[in-house]
């Protein structure tokens, strides 16, 4: 074909930027859409590091070990071939980032330093202080800015994706988006689109995610016919700092550098933690999991903390909090390796974690589930690709710490070239037979409806209720009865959404109408999570049902695939076998070595 392929990338976090760079390098043209300037994407929040089996510590680490840890940590729910390919690509990704100028911490010899993270016994995590995500995002942002200066990339920042434009054959021909300032709705043609829109934290109200992580784009696509896979797998990070506006992450790297989790042995012991002698402290993770100690995977650590707080009633001051203690570690080491996160704790809580143990509690952090994709990152709708947290491919039932950054960059680097190849094979360019006009009209009408709706419900209050509901019943501990009630309440919330009343009806930088749209999409996606969790009668990774405490490979070694049934206005489900062709199934336990 004559013209260079035109690809739209939605989302400018690590996955999106990685895809953009690959496409530009192949000679394609990219339109990059992002709600916020891409440098402000949620990837900046990643703290601890990025995994790659470089084996620079003489431990005999290998990409196979990384692969095995990832599959085992994910409780065998991930398709194994793509995970293997990712782990094999990881050392090259680190080299590339190193060449791009990421200021990774160094050893005395000037080589990359690596630290330990959860779910592995190897020092496999490269890091740049404790702001690794920020440093990685900046490196890719800089390369994209270079392509932008060369005219190969055009950025649409402060634009939000509304829907895909599908032609009469169900093939994606572009997107429909809204300018968040002028409120103009416009369609943009492309040969293929790549969705890299990140997490869904806002569904849970308060989480460690950024404000833009609503899952709205994924949900819109699910409602347009994309499969959404393994939605019920939600990661709750064991150590976050509870706050009024969000739960701020306290990185796993704090434990990777030797941080210890404990509670006073005596209930209600309100002494200053430093005056509590060793013999009166309970290092419960170290006691229960002698082999991995404080570095068990996140689902395991989170359940342990819940047990200590809610069953043993040993939370600090009777509140849902435990100590994360760094005070025994040399101050210089802390500053060199963890400064960024210590600074966050200091700024937002007011205590110095070098001197006082931190008070932390689990918080919703990550979705393992997401848009269903094949091994080339293609969704089931031709022309729609996806990479990053918004897809489901690499983490199975539980993601290991420091694997998200590598999966984002790797997924983007697969999706970019795959979309270009797809575009090159497209037969002619269709004008879409009026599908652009139709989609634009549909989205504009939806905005007008919301603007003119005369009701009594405030969308921000509805959102608050949604967050409490989902956090209570769809996170750490799940019961079928509660999940059924949750879904019934979601139907109620959707009903109340019809009576939404916007307190802002202006046509300029109106955040209310945009938020109301996101909220509707959050509600639809919440049902996928609640119903998926209700169906899966087993415990696997982050999905834990006390009534079904064991993994059930006979019945549930399968991928959940939800699709939207427009007539019923609710999710329907199919299941697909998991590819476990490379590593045989075995029980997952962390009290002993694998």
């Amino acid at each position, binding site marked *: 074909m004559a013209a260079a392929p035109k690809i739209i990338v939605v989302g400018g976090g690590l996955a999106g930027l990685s895809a953009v760079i690959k496409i530009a390098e192949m000679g394609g043209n990219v339109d990059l859409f992002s709600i916020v300037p891409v*440098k402000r994407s*949620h990837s900046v929040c990643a703290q601890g590091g990025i995994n790659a089996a470089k084996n620079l510590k003489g431990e005999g680490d290998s990409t196979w070990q990384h692969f095995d840890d990832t599959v085992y940590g994910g409780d065998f729910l991930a398709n194994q071939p793509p995970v293997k390919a990712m782990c094999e690509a990881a050392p090259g990704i680190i080299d590339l980032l190193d060449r791009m100028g990421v200021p990774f911490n160094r050893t005395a010899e000037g080589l990359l330093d690596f630290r330990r993270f959860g779910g592995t016994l190897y020092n496999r995590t490269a890091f740049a*202080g404790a702001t690794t995500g920020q*440093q990685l995002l900046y490196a890719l942002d800089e390369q994209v800015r270079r392509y932008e200066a060369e005219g190969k990339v055009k950025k649409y920042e402060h634009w939000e994706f509304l829907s895909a434009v599908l032609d009469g054959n169900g093939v994606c021909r572009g997107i429909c988006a809204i300018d968040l300032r002028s409120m103009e709705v416009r369609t943009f043609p492309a040969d293929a689109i790549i969705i890299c829109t990140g997490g869904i934290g806002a569904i849970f109200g308060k989480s460690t995610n950024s*404000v833009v992580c609503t899952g709205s784009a994924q949900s819109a696509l699910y409602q347009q016919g994309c499969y959404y896979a393994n939605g019920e797998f939600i990661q709750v990070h064991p150590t976050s700092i509870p706050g009024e506006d969000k739960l*701020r992450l306290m990185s796993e790297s704090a434990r990777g550098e030797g941080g210890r989790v404990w509670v006073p042995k005596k209930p209600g012991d309100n002494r200053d933690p430093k005056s509590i002698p060793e013999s009166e402290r309970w290092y419960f993770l170290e006691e229960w999991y002698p082999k991995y100690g404080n570095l068990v995977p996140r689902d395991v650590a989170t359940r342990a903390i819940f047990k200590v707080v809610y069953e043993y009633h040993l939370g600090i001051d009777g509140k849902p909090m435990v100590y994360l203690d760094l005070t025994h570690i040399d101050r210089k080491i802390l500053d060199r390796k963890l400064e960024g996160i210590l600074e966050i704790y200091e700024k937002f809580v007011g205590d110095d974690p070098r001197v006082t143990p931190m008070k932390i509690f689990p918080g919703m952090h990550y979705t393992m589930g997401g848009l269903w994709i094949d091994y080339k990152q293609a969704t089931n709708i031709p022309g729609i690709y996806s990479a990053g947290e918004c897809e489901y491919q690499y983490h199975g039932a539980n993601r290991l710490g420091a694997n998200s950054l590598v999966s984002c960059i790797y997924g983007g680097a697969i999706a970019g070239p795959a979309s270009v190849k797809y575009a090159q094979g497209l037969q002619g360019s269709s004008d879409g037979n009026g599908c652009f006009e139709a989609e634009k009209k549909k989205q504009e009408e939806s905005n007008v409806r919301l603007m003119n709706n005369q009701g009594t419900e405030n969308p921000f209050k509805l959102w608050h209720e949604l967050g409490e509901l989902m956090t209570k019943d769809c996170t750490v501990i799940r019961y079928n009865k509660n999940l059924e009630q949750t879904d019934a309440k979601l139907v109620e919330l959707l009903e109340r959404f019809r009576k939404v009343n916007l307190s*802002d009806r202006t046509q300029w930088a109106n955040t209310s109408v945009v938020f109301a749209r996101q909220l509707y999409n959050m509600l639809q996606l919440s049902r996928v999570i609640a119903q998926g969790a209700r169906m899966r009668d087993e415990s696997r990774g982050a999905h834990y049902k006390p009534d079904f405490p064991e993994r059930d490979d006979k019945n549930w070694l399968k991928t959940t695939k939800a699709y939207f049934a427009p007539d019923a206005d609710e999710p329907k489900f199919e299941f697909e076998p998991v590819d476990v062709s490379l590593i045989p199934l075995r029980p997952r336990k962390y009290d002993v070595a694998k």
Partner: protein
Amino acid sequence: MANKSVILRIKRQPNPAAKAHWEEFELAYKPNMNVTSCLMEIAANPVTREGKATTPITYDSNCLEEVCGSCAMLINGRARMACSALIDHLEQPIRLEPFSKFPIVRDLATDRSVIFENLKAVKAWVPVDGTYDLGPGPRMTQEEQEGAYPLSRCISCTCCMEACPQFNEETGFVGAATISQVRLFNTHPTGKALKRERLAALMGDGGIQECGYAQNCVEVCPKDIPLTKAIAEVGGEVMKQAFVDLFRR
């Protein structure tokens, strides 16, 4: 000590053409409140202190942990990030205003895209050959890493530009953040390949010469970046470069 309520005075402007006005809000005090949590509460109940219904406040925000650089605004007259502005540490009534030196979008949101244009102008990137596998990057000592890392933590919040007396339409000054990035890339073993071009971009009107050494930048920087040090070092390099260029012609 805990106050019973929190009072905020917020400068409102519905669009760039409209006139600005002030609105006051009163919220029930809770521990651990920050400016962003207050703005979220107002969105859920947009009613002024006098009981008048109004619109939610438009403002930029994203990470809420002071790494994304979105929520910069003037809080009690000081350029800072709203997420890390804890209510307990602020004098009331708390005055919220948009940045004054950037085009207003609406309410507390301003258009600060000039910072990204500046980064483009100084080629703030490492010119890698490509993303194919070329082995590891250059070796670096711990000392070099420790020099680069603080500069690399710049969140492009533009607080340093808002606070700078020289940053205005008249001078067209690029501002401290961009100069510190020149410093960062000019010291990187591969990045320094573009050193001459970066220094050239900082010569002349709007360049580094506009700096008046007021030192406000380093004062307001939320990330404690050694901005004045970077400016001094780059300033010296620009002078040297200008001198060399003079004799090359």
